[in-house]
């Protein structure tokens, strides 16, 4: 991952968006959306070694891999909803942004239901 390329792309996109916002408000939003997508894709292509390290640690700890996949799913949902909600906030739609945030929270809770269930069963085993 080339941090300097990402920094340059971000600054260029911000400058272009600031220029275009005077003439066409929509294009500012589109440039910010495109820049976030481009940067996020560049980061995601580079994040693989980190995930391998995490799964290695998980193997060393001997925990179930389903828990790790639940965690990664929650992270992905957070990234996507954060992207959408920031775009809505930038275009001045705070209400839609907070609804998207809410949907993301519920989605993360729904994804982590198996974790809660296994924790509850563990507590039950400990008590009885």
């Amino acid at each position, binding site marked *: 991952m080339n941090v300097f390329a990402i920094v340059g*792309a971000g600054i260029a996109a911000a400058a272009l968006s600031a220029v275009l916002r005077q003439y*066409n408000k929509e*294009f500012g939003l589109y440039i910010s959306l495109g820049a976030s997508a*481009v940067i996020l*894709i560049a980061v995601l292509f580079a994040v693989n070694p980190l995930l391998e390290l995490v799964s290695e640690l998980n193997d060393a700890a001997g925990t179930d891999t389903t828990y790790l996949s639940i965690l990664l799913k929650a992270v992905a949902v957070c990234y996507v909803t954060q992207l959408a909600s920031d775009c809505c906030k930038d275009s001045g739609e705070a209400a839609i942004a907070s609804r998207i945030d809410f949907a993301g929270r519920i989605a993360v809770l729904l994804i982590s239901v198996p974790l809660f269930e296994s924790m509850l069963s563990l507590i039950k085993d400990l008590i009885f």
Partner: protein
Amino acid sequence: MNVDLIFKIAGIGIVVAILNLLLQRSGRDEQAMMTTIAGLIVVMMLLISEIGTLFETIRSVFDL
């Protein structure tokens, strides 16, 4: 990294803004609006494919 996309969107935006200005000056407001909408649709098409790539990448990285 696909930085060309940002410049493509910005270029389309500048062209549309100039066309919009010229058409409005010459009194063709309807055509000015049509150019704006056409530019928006073109940019949306560009963005949709990029966002599709983003979702596909997220899906493959976090194996959803």
